[in-house]
């Protein structure tokens, strides 16, 4: 079964990669412009795939941690935190940095740093709260609270940016989710983060398996809950920051991809994590291709496409597996 899943995912991955390179508004028949188009599309493919892989695996981790198949990085407020961090950095760069000492720094390089800082800030608050009341429900509610707090602050940052039309537009694009503007620099800076995050999560796969039996049983089998919780949260933050830095806020990937794959590969994390990385990447690339071919005045933001596909698919899954969801995985 696992071999078949990998075959299907490999075929899908290769064909979506081809589609991602060949489909778009530019005409590849023009021999002068073709290499430029191809390079832009390759970067775009890389960014979309990396963001999807990061989000899907981040979803697996938080679902295991909270023993809830409906969890997702956004539940921790990490997505919102990373997004706010990115926006604050953009605003600070434009209003303070441009023309001064920071001018030699490209915003390309600053954005991922801002995202990590935002995600880490979100988690620092979360950990402080967790220390006060060591309870999963408190943790989840705090995550929701942080999400809306960061969203409000993000709105504030956008209105501060309104004085410059371009900046406000850039932020809105960032908030909606988009991979068009990703340059080679940002991709090169973010890819190591992705690799480290994926490897670290793979290292915690067996601990996540133990958590499927609940915290007490996991502890009785020798799992140090505090360390496991901390590591899961940290690496989820890194993966979320990767995704946000590359593609802005794109929702549902971390929810749908693991949920769809569990029925084929089972719930064991050592199998689920690599499969989710592949499938998540492919899913976001497909969404990106759809974003290019949808009829619209300008290109449809990626976050809109994942939302349009994700929400109904997720709702269907929820209704079909209501019983399973109510009782666990």
């Amino acid at each position: 079964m696992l071999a078949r899943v990998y075959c299907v995912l490999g075929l899908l991955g290769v064909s979506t990669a081809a589609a991602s390179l060949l489909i778009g508004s530019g005409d590849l028949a023009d021999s002068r412009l073709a290499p430029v188009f191809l390079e832009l599309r390759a970067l775009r493919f890389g960014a979309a795939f990396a963001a999807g892989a990061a989000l899907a695996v981040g979803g697996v981790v938080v679902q295991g941690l909270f023993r809830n198949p409906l969890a997702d990085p956004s539940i921790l407020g990490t997505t919102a935190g990373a997004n706010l961090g990115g926006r604050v950095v953009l605003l600070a760069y434009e209003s303070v940095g441009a023309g001064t000492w920071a001018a030699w720094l490209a915003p390309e390089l600053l954005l991922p740093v801002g995202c990590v800082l935002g995600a880490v800030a979100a988690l620092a608050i979360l950990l402080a709260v967790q220390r006060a009341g060591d309870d999963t429900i408190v943790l989840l509610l705090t995550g929701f609270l942080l999400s809306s707090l960061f969203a409000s602050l993000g709105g504030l940052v956008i209105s501060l940016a309104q004085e410059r039309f371009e900046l406000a537009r850039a932020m809105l694009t960032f908030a909606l989710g988009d991979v068009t503007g990703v340059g080679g620099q940002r991709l090169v800076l973010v890819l190591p983060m992705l690799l480290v995050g994926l490897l670290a999560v793979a290292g915690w796969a067996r601990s996540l398996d133990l958590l499927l039996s609940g915290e007490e049983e996991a502890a009785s089998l020798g799992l140090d809950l505090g360390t496991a919780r901390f590591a899961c949260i940290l690496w989820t933050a890194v993966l979320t920051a990767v995704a946000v830095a590359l593609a802005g806020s794109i929702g549902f990937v971390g929810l749908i991809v693991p949920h769809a794959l569990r029925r084929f590969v089972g719930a064991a994390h050592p199998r689920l994590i690599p499969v989710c990385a592949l499938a998540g990447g492919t899913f976001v690339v497909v969404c990106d291709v759809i974003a290019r071919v949808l009829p619209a005045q300008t290109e449809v933001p990626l976050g809109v496409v994942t939302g349009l596909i994700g929400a109904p698919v997720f709702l269907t899954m929820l209704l079909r597996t209501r019983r399973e969801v109510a009782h666990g995985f």
Partner: protein
Amino acid sequence: MVAESSIALEARGLRVVRSRRVVLQAVDLQCAYGETLAILGPNGAGKSTLLRALAGVLPCEGSLRIAGRDAAELSLSERALELGYVAQNSALRAALSVEEVVAQGRFAQRRRLFGRVAGDGGTRAVHAERASQAIDAALKRTDLVELRRRSYLELSFGEQRRVMLARTLASGARILCLDEPTAALDVGHALDLFALLGELAAEGYALVVVLHALDDALRFADRALLLNRGRTVVSGACSDVLARSTLNDVYHVELEERAGVRFHRMAQSTHVGDA
């Protein structure tokens, strides 16, 4: 008395406080290797709490020695190598195969990328070999060999209970804490389970078993600890603990002396992998 080295579990003045309420206090117990200790008491007496405290999943005060070492000095991994815990109802509801669930028992013995290796050393291959042997042995003991590739979710309740026992057996721990292992099992499966527990005790496992049915304790346990409202009422040999007067006090029941109905497995009975 029992020789010092054969004492598996020894607790003195155990006290558990949950949300500012004392749910267990001044509990002393001792269990040697090869011995079965039954924990008895009415509902809410603190039997499960005691077991969870012994397993290290609930914080407790007092002195607790596991396999001759102070429990406070043991990490969770080291503790798991000595003492296995089977909850009354596992919270596991995931599409893992039986083999994968049983393999979780080896978690405390895994080789780590960084830091100390729990258990003894050995190369990766030696470790893997030892793990697969322990998993096979645990599956065999619990009659699960034919079910090893099946999903845990597809199993019957009784089979799931056996999987949980197998997971603990695979860990190699010699002290087993079992919370009502026969609850919701039919009489046949309950007898099979007690037969298995008897074998384990004969091999030198120390068993601490929470039991609901008093006659089970009389037949399968060496010693018993009777709890009521979080305190020890009496502990000692089963027949002493289950004396008429204590039962009157604790359960408010009369013990009726008569030749009751007794069940035992028929010799030709086969029941491997039944649903």
